[in-house]
């Protein structure tokens, strides 16, 4: 049985009107009397369908339209055209029944009251979301344990470290146990250890509650660790939607073979296998065609001289960079409409 659809968008489009200003005093005067307005197309014809319980990576370069999409999905801004349904609601109507089912985490100052300890923010959220004393106690204790934030609860939010604040932010965002969680760069600015803790928590939380998660991140480790399906957008358009492995296969149709010989066989010519990336004594690192990987591995083992052989996917960062570079053809991103007011 397939899970029901949690998020669905059809031909989603969002424009922003901006008034650019050239450099200098003259330009300022010109702008005062004859402002030039430009329409920026942040999201263009985006179709999304995400099933309940999925954890999906939402990727794209800066300015691709990820955050704008999240803001539309969470009801902060309306679309210019197209339709959205999240949890059966049209987000921009911002009905209480909808807001009770979602949470959006953007940075570390979304929910926490800056001058108060997180325990107080949690208590405020309890009232806002109408949780009973028992529900509140149980959920708070659960989140405190999972996120290991016990000692931070009584310290003013502004005095917490970035990592502590992020974990408290997550606890606050999840207190009402939303069915859908939008995460915008949840590990940004955190050190590697803290990034790992946040990822472990998110995996654990998702496994426990099956929450639908849409995650944007520039850290490919986040994406690789948390999601199986990724949606990639560039310049407001969807350029990929599928499994993570298919993304790397499409962007980089190669694999990295690293072979170490006990003694290099006579007549071994790595150039015949692919592009040699690195050679150090009997150790070769070669970029090979993906479809030839099994055949090449078998051939090398057949020499009987192999002491170690590994096959790796190309780094996700490189795959993404290739994908964006391939999609970098200039499109009708903005249309200039001089406006004399």
């Amino acid at each position, binding site marked *: 049985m397939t899970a029901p659809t949690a998020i669905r968008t059809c031909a989603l489009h969002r424009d922003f009107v901006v008034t650019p200003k050239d450099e200098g005093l003259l330009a300022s005067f010109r702008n005062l009397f004859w402002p030039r307005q430009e329409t920026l197309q942040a999201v263009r014809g985006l179709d999304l369908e995400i099933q309940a319980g999925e954890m999906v990576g939402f990727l794209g370069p800066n300015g691709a339209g990820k955050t704008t999409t999240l*803001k539309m999905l969470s009801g902060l801004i309306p679309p210019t055209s197209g339709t959205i349904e999240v949890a059966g609601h049209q987000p921009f109507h911002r009905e209480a029944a909808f807001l009770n089912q979602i949470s959006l985490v953007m940075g570390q100052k979304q929910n926490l009251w800056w001058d108060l300890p997180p325990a107080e923010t949690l208590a405020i959220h309890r009232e806002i979301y109408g949780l009973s004393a028992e529900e509140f106690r149980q959920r708070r204790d659960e989140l405190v344990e999972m996120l290991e934030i016990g000692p931070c609860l009584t310290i003013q939010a502004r005095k917490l470290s970035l990592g502590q604040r992020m974990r408290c932010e997550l606890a606050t965002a999840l207190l009402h146990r939303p069915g859908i969680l939008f995460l915008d760069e949840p590990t940004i600015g955190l050190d590697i250890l803290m990034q790992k803790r946040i990822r472990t928590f998110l995996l654990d939380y998702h496994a426990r509650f099956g929450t639908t998660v849409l995650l944007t991140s520039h850290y490919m480790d986040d994406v690789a660790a948390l999601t199986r399906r990724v949606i990639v957008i560039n310049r407001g358009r969807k350029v990929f939607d599928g499994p993570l492995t298919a993304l790397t296969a499409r962007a980089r149709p190669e694999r990295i073979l690293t072979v170490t010989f006990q003694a290099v066989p006579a007549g071994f010519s790595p150039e015949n296998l692919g592009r040699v990336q690195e050679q150090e004594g009997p150790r070769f690192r070669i970029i090979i065609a993906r479809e030839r990987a099994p055949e090449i591995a078998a051939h090398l083992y057949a020499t009987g001289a192999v002491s170690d052989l590994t096959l790796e996917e190309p780094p996700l960062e490189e795959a993404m960079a290739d994908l964006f570079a391939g999609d970098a053809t200039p499109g009708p991103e903005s249309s200039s409409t001089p406006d004399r007011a």
Partner: protein
Amino acid sequence: MITSPEALRGPPGPTPTSPPPETPPGPVAWVVRATRRRWRIGSRLVSANWQMALGYRGMLLVDSFRAMLNPLVLVLAWLSVTRQAGGEFSDGDYLLYYLALPVVTKVSECWTVFTLSEEIRTGTLNRHLLKPLHPLWFHVAEHLTQKILQLLHLVPVVATLAWAVGPRLPALDLSWPRLVVMGAALALATILRFTMTTTIAMTGFWIERVENLNLVLNAAIFALMGGMVVPLETLPSWMRWVTDFLPYRYTLSFPLEILRGRITPGQAAGGFGVGAMWCLAWFVVGQRLWRRGLLAYTAHGG
């Protein structure tokens, strides 16, 4: 598509126990429940604001003295002027007026034009928009807290000054009915100032800096037409007629006129009527601006 929260959770986790289906409450039960919920949220928000404000005790004290400073300067100036020019306002009237003025100003004061417009401009409004509670509740709670705290600092200062100049003050009728009407006028002043200022703040959805518009609509004119710079009773009769129809009188001067027993019950009733109509007008305009503003809101930052 699905609508229930539990259905949004996919197969990985155990299914949380669903609450038993509830029968929809009747209208009375619904109102009781909604009121109770608002009360609980409001108390929690006020409590949170108290905790924050208590961290800035020094600032509160300075603010109370600041609140007294303007009226003190004005009363000294007017006492000097009236001694030379005469007029129907006695020294005692001026003293009473400018002693009570800071208290009424503090009660009716509203600063959403700075806080709400800042939230709109910087995108910090996002955090409130994502919660199942109207964003203005956060501002109402903050105002309630700050006003109570500021009055706690201000009233003893005013009382001490009143005691010091006591013999020069005119006799006051502080009967219960008058105090009740005075309380109602203060409530009207507070609601009117809040709806007016918040509506102006909502223009922040379109205007980058709302403060200038506020200076025109709500600061300079308010100071004159509200009775801040000069008691309205001392204005020429044509100006007093104008002030009767503008909202400013009802945000400041009106409660003071009732305190001093300067208006008849009929005039008071008329004042309440005009003030209530202004409240309604600003509320309706505010609602429209809010709805249209959210359509224009870009949620940048935050």
